[in-house]
C-alpha cells in the first residue's frame, strides 16, 4: 500500500519548517544562549510530528487520548516551542521569552512550567524511559494513545538510553516510536571521534526494534516511516533519521560549534537572509 503524501502537504510542511528555522535562530539569539545546531537538525522531524503525525488538538491540550511526544534531547526545545506555537498551543510572542527569568520556555523543555510538554527532559538518557512508561500505560488502557520519543545521538552514549530501549523491546511496545536525530555531532565534536555509536541501526535491531533509516529532512521519507511504524504491530519502531547539524543555515551546518552557541547579531542577519526572512530580531 502506498502512503499517499500530497504535494500540498509537503509544501505546507516546508513552509512551517522555514518558520521554525527562523524562530530557532531568532530565539537563541534573543536568549543569548541555547542550542541552535540540534534544534535545526531535528526541525523537520518535530514539524512532521506536530503538524501531521501526532493526534493532538490545541483546543484540548490535556485530551487523555492525545499522542505523546517526549523530546529526550530536551536542549532542542526551541524547535518544539516554535512548532507548538505555530500549531496554536502557545502564543507566538512567548517564543522571545526563551531562557528569560519567569518564562515558561525553559532552556530545556519543562512540563511543570509549560504543561503541553509531556515530560521535562534535559539531563540526557531519561526520555526513552519515560516514553516506555507512557507506552506501557497506553497498553494498560483505557487511553490507547501512541508515544513518540526523539533521541539525540550524543545521548546514545548514555547507558540508561539502552536500558530503556531494552525495556521497549522486551515489552514489545508496538505503540512506541523512537526517532534518532542522527546529526553526527555533540558538544565537543563528532560522535564518532569522541565515543562512536555506530553501527547504530544494527544496535536498534539487536534491541528488537523494527528499524528504518531515512533522510531526516525529506518529508516523504519521514511521513513514510511514521506510516510504516503504525503498521508495525510486533514491537517498537526505531527511525534512524540521518540529519545535518545546523540544517538550513550554511555556516552552522556540519559542525559542533553551534551545538550550544547562539548566533551573534551579524550571524543572525546572515542566517535570516539564507532562510529568506526579513532581517532583524522580532520586535
Amino acid at each position, binding site marked *: 500500500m502506498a502512503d499517499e503524501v500530497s504535494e500540498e502537504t509537503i509544501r505546507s510542511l516546508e513552509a512551517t519548517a522555514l518558520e521554525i528555522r527562523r524562530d530557532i535562530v531568532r530565539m537563541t539569539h534573543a536568549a543569548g544562549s541555547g542550542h541552535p545546531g540540534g534544534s535545526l537538525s531535528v526541525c523537520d522531524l518535530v514539524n512532521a510530528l506536530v503538524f501531521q503525525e501526532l493526534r493532538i488538538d490545541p483546543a484540548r491540550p490535556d485530551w487523555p487520548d492525545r499522542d505523546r511526544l*517526549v523530546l529526550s534531547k530536551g536542549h532542542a526545545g526551541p524547535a518544539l516551542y516554535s512548532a507548538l506555537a505555530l500549531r496554536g498551543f502557545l502564543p507566538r510572542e512567548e517564543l522571545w521569552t526563551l531562557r528569560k527569568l519567569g518564562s515558561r520556555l525553559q532552556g530545556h523543555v519543562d512540563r511543570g512550567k509549560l504543561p503541553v510538554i509531556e515530560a521535562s527532559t534535559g539531563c540526557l538518557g531519561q526520555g526513552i524511559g519515560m516514553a516506555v512508561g507512557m507506552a506501557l500505560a497506553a497498553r494498560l488502557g483505557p487511553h490507547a494513545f501512541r508515544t513518540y520519543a526523539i533521541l539525540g545521538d550524543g545521548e546514545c552514549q548514555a547507558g540508561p538510553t539502552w536500558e530503556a530501549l531494552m525495556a521497549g523491546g522486551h515489552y514489545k511496545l508496538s505503540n512506541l516510536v523512537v526517532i534518532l536525530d542522527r546529526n553526527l555531532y555533540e558538544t565537543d565534536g563528532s560522535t564518532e571521534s569522541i565515543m562512536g555509536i555506530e553501527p547504530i541501526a544494527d544496535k536498534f535491531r539487536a534491541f528488537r526494534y523494527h528499524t528504518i533509516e531515512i533522510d531526516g529532512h525529506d518529508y516523504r521519507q519521514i511521513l513514510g516511516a511514521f506510516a510504516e511504524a503504525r503498521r508495525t504491530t510486533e514491537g517498537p519502531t526505531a527511525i534512524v533519521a540521518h540529519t545535518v547539524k545546523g540544517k538550513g543555515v550554511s555556516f552552522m551546518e556540519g559542525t559542533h560549534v553551534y551545538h550550544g552557541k547562539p548566533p551573534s547579531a551579524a550571524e543572525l542577519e546572515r542566517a535570516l537572509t539564507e532562510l529568506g526572512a526579513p532581517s532583524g530580531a522580532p520586535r
Partner: protein
Amino acid sequence: MTPAGPAESLRDAYGKTLLELGGKDPTLVVLDADLSGSTRTILFGQKYPDRFFNVGVMEPTMMSIAAGLALSGRVAFASSFAVFAAGQAYNFVRQSICYNHANVKIVATHGGLLVGGDGGTHQMVEDIGLMRGLPGMTVIVPADAPTTRAATLAVHAREGPAYVRLTRENLPVVTDGTFQLGKAAELRSGSDLTIVAVGAMVARALEVADELAQMGVSTRVLDFASVKPFDEPALLRAARDTGAVLVLEEHSVLTGVGALVASTTSENYPVPVRRVGVPDVFGESGDPWALLDRYGMSLERIRDEAWELLRVRGKVQ
C-alpha cells in the same frame, strides 16, 4: 509504659499493604528491579501480573518508566534496595520523578547498616539526605511494621513523589500504627531530655528512655518517621520543654535527621543537640546489630550522650 512488641518485618508489611491497595485502586502499578522477593513486591506481582513490571537491573530507568506511567494517570510504586533506588538512580529520581512532579512512590528496602553481610557497598547511609534535598519529595522512615503499613497508605493517598525507607531486619513494634504525614509521634512524654529517633533507632531510644526513667530522668521520645514534611512545632516544643535534644539515626550524621534537628533548633530555639549516627565513613560486612554497635550507635553510646546532655544542662552532676 508499653514494652516493645515482638519483631516484625517491615518489608512484609509493605508487600501486604501493596496487595491490599491493588484490589482497591485499579490505577496502581508496581515496578521492581530484580529484587522483588527481597522487597516483597512479588506479592503484588503474583496477584496482579498485568500491573507489575520487573524491569531487571536497571534502577535508573525503572524510575523513568515509573514516571512515564505516572504522567499517564497511574499511581506507580517502585522498589529496590536503598543504595540503588536513591544512590544509583539519583538523577533519575530528580528529573524524571521530582522535576516532573510525577506520582511515583519509591519504597526502598535495605536502608542503613542493618543490611549486614552484604557490606559497605550495599549499606546506604546517605539516602535520607539525598531524598530530603529534592523539592517536592516526601520522605518517611518507619520505625516498625504498623508504621510501614500506615506510611504506604499515606503516600498512596497523597499526590506527588515520595520516598519510604525500610530496614531489612525485623524490628520490634513500637508504635500503634497511627502514623500521620508531617506529625511526630510522642512515644514517651518527658521534661528533662528529648530523644528524636527514626527507623531502627526508635526502639533503642525507648530502651534508653526507660532506663533513664528508673533513675528519675524524664525523657521525651519523638518518632520522626515523617522526615519531610517535618514536624517543626513538635521539635521546637520539645526543645523548649526539655532544653536538650539527642538524635538517633542509622544514617550519616552529616546529612541526616540529626543535621535537620540541629539546623532547625539553632535557627529557632537553640539548645544543645547531640547526633548519634554513622560518622563520615562507609560500613562493612558483619552481623547487623553488631554493626550498629561498632559504628557508634550502641546503647552505651546513646546513654553516654544522654548523660552528657543532662550534665550540660545542669540536670545531673
